């Protein structure tokens, strides 16, 4: 590591007004775009890349990284406030973020999300700076078998997020996985559960309209029902936000979750094809399993928000590792960034560390700056965002519905997706009513396609010999951890159920 070059690169980035301005503008745009359900960080980067054409490399990378980091945090705003994750990477944030909002702690949830995003992003940037060649080598050992086992490990989290009934959670998860198989088979293009005439479903159910339907539309329908019954409470609009950052007590409570989330996010982000949407659930399940009070997870605790938000921002650093070290983008945003590098005449890859080392260090510094910019924008906006919950529910629900349906349309500019969103809204409402958890469906929708694609690839490479997977050490580690997670979660859940039943019986006896 060339320390003096690293220091001078940081100086060049942090002392350049154009880089500062572009990064802050990017972060602002990213936060606002990410907060709109249906608009992802990828779309934000893709939309704004033309603006970077005329700039030098580092200001343009600063702009794009600002959008990337801002978008990751922005997704949590709508997840916390209106139960509709702005981006897939914020999907797990609603598990605890929205209950916190319902308890009148929207401001606290937002500040925890922002702080965790920042620290997670910094962890990712630091790991990227110091360990990128080593991690890139590790990530390149991931073949289809390892990716399949990573997906299986991710799916093992379902047991941890199933709630009271594991059977119900698993039914929901298999239902979600079954939904992923609708459309054309990814390997041979064979139609499944559809005909070629049903063009809207050829690519299956689109993830974002399904997500918006299951969570936002279902919540609006349930909210209208509660208002008519007189059960809806107006959330306190008087939550005092004295500090835009979490207090010391909260930070002490959440720091292990932030740390582990940041590390998990960085490592998962570094694996090409695995992104923030997977990392958040892995981090959530991991942190819940290790918690002394797993029964509180999902009821609105800052630990849940911290574990997911640090993971998705950690991913931004992780995804840059294979991009810079190997020239392989870790996710769709870094794929666009790869294009930006090439446009400027720089080819990312192993040679970049030799021929363009100052540029590499400036990119490290730009990522750090992007996280800082996201924190500043978040701090400035947290009071404003928190005010959204004080809007009268009778006005808020119709507004959420109108915005959500537009978000569903905007992905593919397809009315069919709006229909899908409405249908899943109805399914989500019914499943919520009868306490079939929706989070396992969400996880299944994210991991199902990855699981199937890699399973099929692996089987074709190994000529049908699935058991060859037991010779891969990485795959075995994931399998062992997955089995341990499942067993541990079942044990913990049975303890929680027994404790709750005893508590209820005692309450009735009194």
């Amino acid at each position, binding site marked *: 590591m060339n320390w003096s070059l690293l220091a001078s690169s940081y100086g060049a980035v942090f002392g350049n007004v154009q880089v500062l301005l572009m990064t802050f503008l990017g972060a602002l745009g990213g936060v606002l775009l990410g907060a709109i359900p249906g608009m992802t960080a990828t779309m934000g980067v893709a939309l704004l890349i033309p603006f970077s054409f005329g700039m030098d490399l580092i200001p343009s990378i600063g702009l794009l990284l600002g959008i990337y980091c801002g978008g990751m945090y922005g997704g949590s705003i709508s997840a916390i406030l209106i139960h509709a994750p702005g981006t897939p990477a914020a999907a797990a944030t609603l598990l605890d973020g929205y209950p916190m909002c319902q308890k009148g702690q929207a401001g606290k949830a937002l500040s925890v999300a922002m702080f965790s995003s920042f620290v997670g992003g910094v962890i990712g940037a630091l790991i990227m700076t110091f360990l990128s060649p080593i991690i890139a080598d590790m990530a390149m050992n991931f073949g289809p078998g390892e990716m399949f086992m990573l997906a299986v490990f991710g799916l093992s989290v379902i047991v941890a997020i199933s709630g009271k009934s594991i059977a119900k959670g698993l039914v929901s998860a*298999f239902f979600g996985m079954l939904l992923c198989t609708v459309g054309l088979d990814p390997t041979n293009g064979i139609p499944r559960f559809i005909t070629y005439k049903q063009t809207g479903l050829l690519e299956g159910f689109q993830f974002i309209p399904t997500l918006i339907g299951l969570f936002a539309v279902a919540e609006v329908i349930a909210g209208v029902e509660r208002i008519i019954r007189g059960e809806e409470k107006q959330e306190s609009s008087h939550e005092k936000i004295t500090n835009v950052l979490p207090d010391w007590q909260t930070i002490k409570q959440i720091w292990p979750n932030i740390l582990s989330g940041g590390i998990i996010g960085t490592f998962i982000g570094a694996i090409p094809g695995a992104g923030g949407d997977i990392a958040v659930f892995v981090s959530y399940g991991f942190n819940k399993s290790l918690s002394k009070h797993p029964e509180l997870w999902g009821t609105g605790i800052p630990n849940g928000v911290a574990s997911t938000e640090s993971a998705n921002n950690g991913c931004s650093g992780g995804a840059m590792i294979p991009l810079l070290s190997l020239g392989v983008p870790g996710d769709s945003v870094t794929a666009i960034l790869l294009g930006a590098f090439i446009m400027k005449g720089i080819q990312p890859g192993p040679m970049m560390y030799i021929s363009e080392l100052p540029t590499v260090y400036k990119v490290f510094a730009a990522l750090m700056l992007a996280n800082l910019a996201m924190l500043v924008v978040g701090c400035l906006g947290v009071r404003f965002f928190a005010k959204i919950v004080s809007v009268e529910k009778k006005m808020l629900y119709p507004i959420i519905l109108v915005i959500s349906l537009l978000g569903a349309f905007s992905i593919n500019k397809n009315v069919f997706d709006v229909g899908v969103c409405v249908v899943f809204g109805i399914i989500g409402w019914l499943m919520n009513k009868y306490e079939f958890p929706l989070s396992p469906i969400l996880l299944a929708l994210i991991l199902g396609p990855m699981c199937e694609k890699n399973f099929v690839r692996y089987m074709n490479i190994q000529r049908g010999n699935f058991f060859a997977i037991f010779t891969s050490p990485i795959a075995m580690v994931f399998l062992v951890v997955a089995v341990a997670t499942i067993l541990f979660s079942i044990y913990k859940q049975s303890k929680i159920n027994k404790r709750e039943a005893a508590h209820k019986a005692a309450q009735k006896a009194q």
Partner: protein
Amino acid sequence: MKKTKTQAFANLIGSLIFIALGAWALTQTYSFQEVKNTYVQAAVFPQIMCVGMLIFAIILLIQSIIKLMTMDENDPLAEPAASINFIKDRGVLAALFVMLLCVLFVMFFKSLGYVICGAVLCFVIMVLIGKRNWLQMALVSILVPLGMWLVFYKVLTVNIPMGPLQFLRDLVDMI
């Protein structure tokens, strides 16, 4: 309380629905086209998912039956299940009405455009849930879809159907 109104009974009905769905999907997979020289046919993965869903739905069914036979009034599953009886429950009726409005929104989205459909949807839901400040309702119903359209059209360059309000696009382009 009648056992048919408990959460355990609702679980039983839910498990039966998923069993029916799983069984139907499994039978469908046998009609999927097969490809030569491949180790995993298109039907394999859906079949695994169907079998998984059937297994856990059957476990849920058995759990529910045992609960219905053995539970006492202190059991959490003996609590009343949520209702979907729209005749007795005005809340459910309102929820169904919102669903109907959403379906109409989808049906008329292309012909009437987002702004008109969104404004009507927003206004009717506000009326339904008892908001009566007409000026505020009218302003919110018009300005929110209009504002969102403007953001998506100008900032995010997403082309959204405008129906009879197509002239707004030309107007904005002119400005």
